[in-house]
């Protein structure tokens, strides 16, 4: 009951300087992050970067080497998992296969509301209040199940359920005890594509309805972009950037973040600063706002949608040989070999242009008035402001 009272307090999560090594291999490296009450925060990063480890540390299932965790302003480092008022949905769902759905969902409530004696098989039922509390638990389980549309499955065992149904039961088990914080570790990665899209919406809706803090782990950028209030990008055990999905996409803090977000991947080209505001890239000249030292080399990041076909070569236009085009329904992806880059440049083009392109022909791609990103040699983005490509007046008119 005490934990439920705490719900009224602001249940944000503060992570402070968390580090963790396994067998002297550092996995987490001084992670600090403040998650606001009611926020949907996504931890995004490639597999093996330590996302699950961080989540388990927040839950108290793993012990950090150093650093502290606060939930609702209370230090929880010394609290056992069950005392932390957090619930977790696991990638594998971790449902107990020998219990029915209703037993699975009732277990966290039973463990909290019934004493050890009351939980005993036969003796427990004879003790006072056991029946009343059990009935109360039952009602709550049914109510939660109804809310998730799984009330008809309560008598089934997990083995008899489909992937999507299991997923809902796992959410139900977490939901039933009204935790202050939901932790979700890649909860959708075991579902097929269609169901994943549907569950994405349902989880987002659940977050809106419950209004509690969600910490959601995924390596899927689409999930991160569509669901989150903020995304924390994790790379090699560190937070590379914490920002809203829009910001992460438009202003990635460094080259790795830019590469992680966006599909197809951002095009990266090596460029050399020639003089004030002018770059040479792939044999073409490019005008930028940034003041770069002459002769310094930078990496130019161009999103596929920042390229558009041009009639002729010129300033801010890249020229190359078309390898092939890919149709993906609404768009056309042109893969173009440009000088000085082993990987082809990918441009997202309108489908109507499909008939204009044949393999091996020379194409000109103009860098549009969208953001172009500049990264210095150490991978960080150059300058705080956007590195805009200066529009060619003649072409713009």
């Amino acid at each position, binding site marked *: 009951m005490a934990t439920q009272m705490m719900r009224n307090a602001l249940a944000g999560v503060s992570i402070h300087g968390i580090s963790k090594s396994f067998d002297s291999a550092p996995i987490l490296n001084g992670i600090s992050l403040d998650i606001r009450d009611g926020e949907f925060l996504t931890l995004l990063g490639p597999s093996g970067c330590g996302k699950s480890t961080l989540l*388990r540390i927040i*839950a*108290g*299932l793993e012990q950090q080497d150093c650093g502290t965790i606060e939930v609702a302003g209370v230090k929880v480092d010394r609290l*056992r*998992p*069950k005392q932390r008022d*957090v*619930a*977790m949905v*696991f*990638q*594998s769902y*971790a*449902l*107990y*296969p*020998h219990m029915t759905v209703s037993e699975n969902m009732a*277990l*966290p409530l039973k*463990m*909290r509301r019934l004493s050890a004696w009351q939980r005993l098989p036969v003796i427990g039922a004879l003790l006072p209040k056991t029946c009343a509390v059990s009935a109360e638990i039952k009602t709550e389980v049914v109510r939660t199940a109804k809310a998730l549309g799984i009330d008809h499955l309560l008598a089934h065992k997990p083995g008899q359920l489909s992937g999507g149904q299991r997923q809902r039961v796992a959410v139900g*088990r977490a939901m039933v005890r009204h935790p202050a914080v939901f932790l979700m570790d890649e909860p959708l990665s075991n579902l097929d594509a269609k169901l994943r899209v549907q569950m994405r919406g349902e989880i987002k809706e659940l977050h809106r309805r419950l209004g509690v803090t969600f910490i959601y782990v995924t390596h899927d950028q689409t999930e991160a972009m569509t669901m989150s209030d903020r995304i924390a990008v994790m790379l090699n055990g560190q937070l590379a950037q914490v920002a809203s999905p829009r910001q992460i996409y438009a202003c990635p803090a460094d080259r790795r973040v830019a590469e992680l977000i966006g599909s197809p991947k951002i095009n990266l080209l090596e460029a050399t600063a020639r003089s004030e505001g002018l770059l040479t890239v792939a044999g073409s000249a490019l005008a930028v706002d940034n003041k770069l030292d002459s002769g310094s080399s930078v990496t130019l990041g161009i999103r596929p949608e920042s390229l558009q076909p041009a009639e002729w070569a010129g300033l801010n236009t890249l020229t190359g040989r078309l390898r092939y085009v890919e149709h993906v329904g609404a768009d056309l992806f042109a893969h173009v070999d440009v000088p000085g880059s082993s990987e082809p440049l990918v441009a997202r083009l309108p489908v109507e242009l499909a008939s204009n392109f044949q393999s091996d022909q020379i194409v000109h791609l103009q860098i549009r008035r969208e953001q172009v990103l500049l990264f210095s040699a150490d991978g960080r983005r150059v300058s705080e402001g956007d590195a805009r490509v200066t529009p060619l007046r003649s072409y713009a008119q």
Partner: protein
Amino acid sequence: MTLPMKILAGAVRHAILLTTGSLVLAPFVWMVSLSLKPPAELFSSSFTLLPQHWFAVENYARALTEAPLPRYMLNGVIVCAAILLLQIMICAPAAYALAKVRFAGRQVMFGFVLIGLLIPHQVLALPLFILCYGLGIFNTYAALIFPFVVSPFGIFLFRQFFMSIPDDIVHAARLDGLSELSIVWRIMLPMSLPAVLAFSIVSVVSHWNDLFWPLLVVRSQEFMPPSLGIVTFANAEAGNDYGPLMAGATVVVAPLVISFLAAQRWFIEGLTAGSIK
């Protein structure tokens, strides 16, 4: 292979297997057959499976009254049940700790389990005998039970099973508020029922059938388990009065044979796993 060849091969297969099968079963058949016959028929050189005069009631009655056969059976049940219960209560938490809890000294402890697994019980008989004497439990149920309350094989088998249960399940249980011990009882053991069943069969079969240890520590019939009991009965029946003796042997063997026929697959898997330790 042509069809006649196939039929011939099948016939040969059945002929051989029926022959070896009846040879293997011959002692059982002979046991039951003798247990039905009156003494006079035992000596007749014309052997028949079924008696001319049924003497089953007399033989079984004598077996059950002259020797305390029901007592032996009850002892067997008490001893086997106590051993199995204690073994599971002691081995399952240990196996869980070895499989899922990270603590200093875990490897060393598993090493001790492996050493225990390696040592045959007969080698330890002497010090255990002295131990039982020292504890004053010589010639009691406790002497029959105590040396077996921990089974390295049980720990090993349960650990194997528990390790195959995903960590996430344990984590979920911890978050759900289960204590470590309730994780063992409520989650790990129910999820490892095949292992529990296999281990139970190994344990019960080996202690029901054990002769070596009871022979050392039990002197009075009051505490004798079935195997020792039937041997004592045989020694007391010095003559050739095979009828009641075979009736006794049948009674001792019957419970396991019946269970075996009822749960063949489990017996075979369990005992095979048990001998592969």
